[in-house]
């Protein structure tokens, strides 16, 4: 049982990632007293040290966080900073196009339009300085809004956003598509 509490806490620490695990929250999830949870997390942290684990557990008051070790930081940085690619992936290009025409726009909107996750593509674009945060949506979620940067105009040789080619609505083509595609019964 004790063993399992440790394993469950390690699981929750991993899942919480950068945010860290609040002891009170873990106490709720496991249905165990908060003080006991803190003691178990501390025991887990020392076990990580004793066993010479690759990762470490940091404590900030009642919040615990799984983290990488200083000794490997150069590898982490090298990993996070891939050699500069001169081209953009298809995913990044699509995301960039959507941001360019719909800005300011949230990542969720981009994902809805593309139908796939845009997490990585957006951070690539931010990393390359083509897209930047431009505030937050008002209201509940306060999702981050993104817009293109000056560097974007530079890279694509545009004087301003007004220089972006206009996108015509291709209604007739759509009708033709429908006409040619036959009818499909799937949904």
């Amino acid at each position: 049982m004790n063993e399992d509490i440790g394993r469950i806490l390690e699981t929750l620490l991993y899942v919480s990632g950068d945010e860290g695990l609040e002891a009170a929250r873990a106490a709720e999830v496991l249905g165990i007293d908060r003080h006991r949870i803190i003691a178990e997390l501390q025991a887990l942290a020392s076990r990580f040290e004793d066993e010479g684990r690759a990762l470490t557990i940091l404590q900030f008051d009642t919040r615990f966080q799984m983290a990488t070790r200083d000794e490997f930081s150069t590898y982490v940085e090298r990993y996070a900073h891939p050699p500069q690619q001169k081209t953009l992936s298809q995913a990044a290009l699509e995301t960039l196009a959507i941001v360019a025409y719909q800005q300011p726009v949230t990542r969720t909107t981009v994902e809805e339009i593309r139908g796939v996750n845009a997490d990585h593509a957006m951070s690539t674009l931010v990393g390359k300085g083509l897209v930047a945060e431009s505030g937050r949506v008002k209201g509940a979620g306060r999702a981050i809004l993104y817009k293109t940067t000056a560097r974007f105009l530079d890279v694509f040789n545009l004087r301003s956003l007004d220089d972006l080619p206009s996108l015509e609505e291709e209604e007739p083509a759509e009708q033709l598509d429908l006409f040619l595609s036959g009818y499909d019964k799937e949904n």
Partner: protein
Amino acid sequence: MQTERYNVKLDSFEGPLDLLLHLIKQAEVDIYDIPVAQITEQYMSYIQKMQALELDVASEYLVMASTLLAIKSQMLLPSQEVWDDAEDGVEEWGEEDPREELVAQLQTYRRYKAVAAELRENQANRAHFFSKPPSKITLGIAYAEEPTSLDVSLADMLQAYENVKQRLRLERPRTTTVETQKWSVEEKMQMITSRVWFSDQPVPFLELYAPGKVDEQVISFMALLQLVKEGHVRCKQGGLFADIYIEAREDTTKHE
């Protein structure tokens, strides 16, 4: 049995092969020895029920209906009298079982259906493993260098946008009404009956065909079979490959 069949959601089939597999399973018969007459009858009754409920019957179902009817009629021929002269350009089928191709098709489809079920299970299992989002990494001074130049053009980006729109267009539910079929089997039956009744002589089968419209031809064929089965009309054929004529049966009342 009958009521049980009504309970099956009529539009829950993935296509004619799926419907056939269902009927074969329900009849508890061997897929390698399908009683074609029985299964065809049940298949037709499904199609009619779908039409009665005004569900769109996709053309694939109608094509399968005519395939089944073709196999059924081939099986009625005595196997000794198999045509082996290809004079008329008629395809020989020798000692082959006319069901062979369909059985192979059903087997293949069934295998993929089984695998699809396994994949669904895999997907459900995968949902029990969780991973955290990638860590946010603040890079040291060494990496905060000037961004290098990018080798992308405006055309690349516009093409990407086109791709997204193309995908969206394909995914968007279609609201356009597509005319699938003008006739129901019942209407065709009425039409054929009155055509036959008001004619002094037997009507050539081919006359009932609207040239070029496959769906309507299938419906006509199904309607005719139904009329024969119900005893309203009789088919006559002078000999093998001769034209088929349809005439009213005097012993029945007029069908209006």
